């Protein structure tokens, strides 16, 4: 094969490498939906700038924050626990923040953690599951004050 062909192939191959990189990056860009209307249908920043009517109403002022955790049902009924800025571990294990004397709860059953102005609950792989307003948890979800959280036979609520 002539030298010219080989040189052409050499540079052609480097080009091919970068064509692959740029195709992958452009596939990712579409994947991340940058600069397009997001899947949720919310308008993008650019659309809002062009058309101020699209902007959503500013978020409601911060709701009354939960300040304490109350056990409303179960063996520990009536117990209250003040909520600070640190996560709370719920379960039967001795090291839990709230030790549940409930045979239907796991050792480390669930955790409550603050994020922004809200509290979230997350199941820690318990045997019998955690229920937020009668829905079994499959991921971390925000807990609004007054919504019952059931762990075994215990029901807790957040109160302002």
């Amino acid at each position, binding site marked *: *094969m002539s030298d010219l062909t*080989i*040189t052409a*192939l*050499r*540079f052609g*191959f*480097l080009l*091919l*490498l*970068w*064509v*692959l*990189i740029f*195709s*992958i*990056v452009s*596939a*990712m860009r579409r*994947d*991340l*939906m940058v600069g397009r209307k*997001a*899947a*949720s249908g919310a308008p993008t920043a650019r659309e809002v700038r062009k058309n101020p009517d699209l902007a959503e109403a500013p978020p409601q002022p911060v709701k009354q924050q939960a300040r304490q955790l109350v056990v409303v049902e179960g063996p520990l009924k009536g117990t209250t626990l003040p909520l600070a800025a*640190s*996560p709370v*571990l719920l379960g*039967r294990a001795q*090291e839990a*923040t709230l030790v549940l004397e409930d*045979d*239907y*709860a*796991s*050792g*480390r*059953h669930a*955790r409550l*953690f603050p*994020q922004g102005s809200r509290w*979230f609950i*997350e199941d*820690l*792989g*318990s*045997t*019998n*599951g955690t229920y937020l307003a009668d829905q*079994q948890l*499959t*991921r*971390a979800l925000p807990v609004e004050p007054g919504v019952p959280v059931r762990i075994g036979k215990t029901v807790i609520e957040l109160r302002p």
Partner: protein
Amino acid sequence: MSQLSTAVKPRRNVELALLVLALAVGIGANMMVGVDKEKAFDSDFWFQSSLLAVAALAFHGVLRFRAKYADPVMLPLVVALNGLGLAMIHRLDPPGADTGNNQLRWTLIAMAVAIAVIWFLKDHRILRRFTFISLAASALLLVLPLVPGISAGEILGARVWIRLGPMTFQPGEVAKITLAIFFAGYLSSNRDLILLAGRKLGPLQFPRFKDMGPMIAAWLVSIGVLIFQRDLGSSVLFFGLFIVMIYVATSRISWVVIGLALILGGGFVASRVFSHVEQRINGWLNAFTPEVYENGSRQVIQGLFGMANGGLVGTGLGQGRPDLVPFANSDMIIASLGEELGLIGIFAIVLMYLLLVTRGFRAALGTRDAFGKLLACGLSFAVALQCFVVIGGVTRLIPLTGLTTPFLAAGGSSLLANWIIVGLLLLISHTARGPVDTTPLPPSKGADTTGIDTPTEAVKQA
């Protein structure tokens, strides 16, 4: 717990298009390496190219069928890297040697195992049940090369291989996966204890020893065995994995500070106590001194000369002399590729790794369970750290240590482990990008194997 939302779309056709491009890179490289010697289309070329293409398309087919929401760019990236490595190894084979076909054999085995992981595991959350089994498995895998009988003895100054029939295998490569599973499982249930219980000393909070016990045991096992096996690279990898996963789980920067201090202190002590570590550091700092060159830094310096010879655009595949560098097809494959593809080509390769790692972290951001987040972070970080240690070593940024370049270097165990990592990341990205799965994990059959969440009594009635 941040979550990003993406439109729910399988995007498998995008993957197919990118995969064809990636195969063009891999097969094109394999053709280029022989083009000036008029052996471009020899039987090895046809054999390797067709099998690589068939395996990659089969993998794609399995993803369509079994994990259709998996990330569409991961597989093409890995196939392109694997193809480039295969081409370079084929190119470096002296007449009569069979390293290229051996690498192909391991590629096929590794892809088959990764397919099996995706096919049978289905949901990465199941791995959480094997938290403590993974710890035991890691310890076993790390101790195996020291056991007489199965050990392959000391090869190139390190005792990390075992003998399996005619082949040798490096169990430490698989141990990084089992350790990541253990760290993810343990930290996802215990991070609050590590975070909250414990006493404060100054600005740093130290956890109770009891809560840290299993983590410290895991760390000691990996470091201890690796000191006896004299494998510096893997101990850096395991320690880095440990620090990063605990940092991701607790978001305390103090862990990174403590970790870096321990690495520097440990490195200083090791360089004084172990002659092989001292030799590595000396070969890094005084690489160009003639005495050091003769016994230590020759490999790195030859690699640097090779890359300098390649320059910006490289000498062209098959046209340089990377074979002058010792271990040109394994430890120094980055230098070989740097010589023949130039700076432009090596940047493309580094960028491929970067994209692969970002897709792993993207899967971690998207998935909804803490275990999956930690596992995806840990596995992606393991790939990233491996690249840093190897490429940094070859370019003399840090001392050269014995880690393999993921997917490129000749070596079966490393290929197998890295393909399993890709399989797991694809599975995690499948749950991350798919529609929200509202069904809880099916209860484990038989005995509860987690050992951490066992209640005294499960619900008896349905």
